[in-house]
């Protein structure tokens, strides 16, 4: 598809971006910009950062935005590029656009309703839909990871977590079923092993207070109540580093500036990251992420 063919899609993309910004401004969120080129990326099990000289390109703005929350910026949002090594497919590009927002005093549950409102606002600006068979106005259907895995895959990842089995079954057994739903789907209470920066549920210690949004079977957003315990966060980063070392993957230095901010104290807050390109794919019916971005040569 050449650039000329994308004109309508890219104009629609610009309209959606404007609507998204207006949505957050109306709710007293302040737009912020944090570095693309970071001293050290957030260490996570399966996310690999692109090197940039003696720095890396960010895989998400999370750690810097949380430092801002620690400094008293209560409601912030950011729309910008994120970079991940080795991710290229119909739903992936090594450089893509993430919308990420943090709500001090908010909860992960509160974010479900705020995301629902965002979907309404976006839908309203681009003709209402449904989009690729998904009704953005429908109330989200909420499932727990546990109930979906027990009924669709025959095991409970909260009882004993099997990482490989979890990833395979999510993609092969759970997601195809979610694809049949006609409205937004939220799956919540992810196993802690897949939620390194999220707070655990107090009443359910194996489960994190983390949910993901699925539209048409596609993972579009990831939200959680943020982990504010600096000691716990350091432990998790170190455990992750050990896993990565054992797998022969690059181990990143710990983000001491972030940990310092956590130690000084982070207010209770919830945050969420949403893939803008994937949202646009749904709106336009695109089959490949490259169809909704101007250039995808990189």
């Amino acid at each position: 598809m050449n650039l000329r063919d994308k004109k309508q899609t890219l104009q629609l993309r610009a309209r959606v971006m404007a609507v998204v910004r207006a949505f957050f401004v109306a709710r007293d969120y302040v737009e912020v910009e944090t570095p693309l080129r970071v001293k050290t990326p957030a260490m996570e099990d399966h996310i690999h950062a692109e090197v940039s000289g003696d720095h890396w390109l960010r895989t998400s703005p999370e750690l810097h935005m949380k430092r801002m929350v620690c400094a008293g910026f209560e409601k912030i949002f950011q729309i910008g590029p994120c970079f991940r090594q080795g991710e290229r497919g119909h739903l992936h590009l090594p450089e893509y656009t993430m919308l990420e927002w943090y709500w001090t005093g908010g909860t992960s549950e509160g974010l479900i309703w705020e995301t629902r409102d965002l979907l309404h606002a976006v839908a309203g600006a681009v003709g209402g839909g449904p989009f690729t068979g998904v009704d953005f106005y429908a109330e989200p259907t909420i499932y727990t990871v546990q109930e979906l895995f027990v009924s669709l895959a025959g095991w409970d990842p909260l009882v004993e977590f099997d990482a490989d089995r979890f990833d395979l079954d999510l993609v092969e057994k759970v997601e195809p079923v979610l694809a049949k739903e006609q409205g937004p789907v939220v799956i919540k209470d992810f196993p802690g092993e897949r939620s390194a920066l999220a707070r655990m549920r107090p009443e359910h210690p194996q489960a994190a207070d983390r949910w993901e949004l699925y539209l048409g079977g596609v993972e579009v957003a990831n939200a959680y109540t943020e982990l504010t315990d600096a000691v716990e966060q350091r432990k998790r980063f170190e455990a992750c580093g050990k896993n990565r070392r054992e797998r022969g993957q690059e181990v990143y230095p710990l983000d001491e500036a972030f940990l310092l901010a956590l130690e000084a104290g982070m207010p209770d807050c919830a945050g969420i990251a949403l893939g803008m390109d994937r949202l646009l794919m749904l709106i336009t019916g695109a089959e490949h992420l490259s169809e909704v971005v101007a250039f995808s040569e990189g």
Partner: protein
Amino acid sequence: MYSTSDLRKGLKIEIDGQPYVITDFQFVKPGKGQALYRCKMKNILTGTGLERTYRSTEKVGKPDLMQKDMSYSYPDGDHFVFMDDTTFEQVTVDVDVIGDLKYFLIEEMPCKVLFFNDTPIDVELPVFVEKTITETEPGARGDTATNVMKPAKIDNGFEIQVPLFINEGDLVRIDTRTGEYTDRVNKG
């Protein structure tokens, strides 16, 4: 062995001793999970379909496949004999492996024979072959512009649809991949 970064559509792989070709390939990755490689493949020998999802640490078998340039020599009952032009080595290919391509074979035609563990499993012919129409109803005089086709036969009895203006004795070009008429080479 292939690693998952080698996988792509069209790649020939081996699973449980059988040769497969990947017909569809997709990279998927849950946000906080590992990269997965979903493959749809077809058994080259039996045609049966298979779906497998690989994790990035997994390896995939490389089949012992070899393609040789050979020429078609002659038919021999239920088999067709091909010869390697440099070694003069002869190979017999089963009629099941050739399939409908047997209608397009011409002596000394350059072909590519695919071997799996030394057994011929597939033959690739040149894209076009020229054959004479031996049987067809006469077409309407001057009718050179319509899209309507009529049945015709070539020397070995293979039936093909041709434009109305084609007559018996005409030499036509046929696409061996589809068995369809392409154009007329010259009039009979």
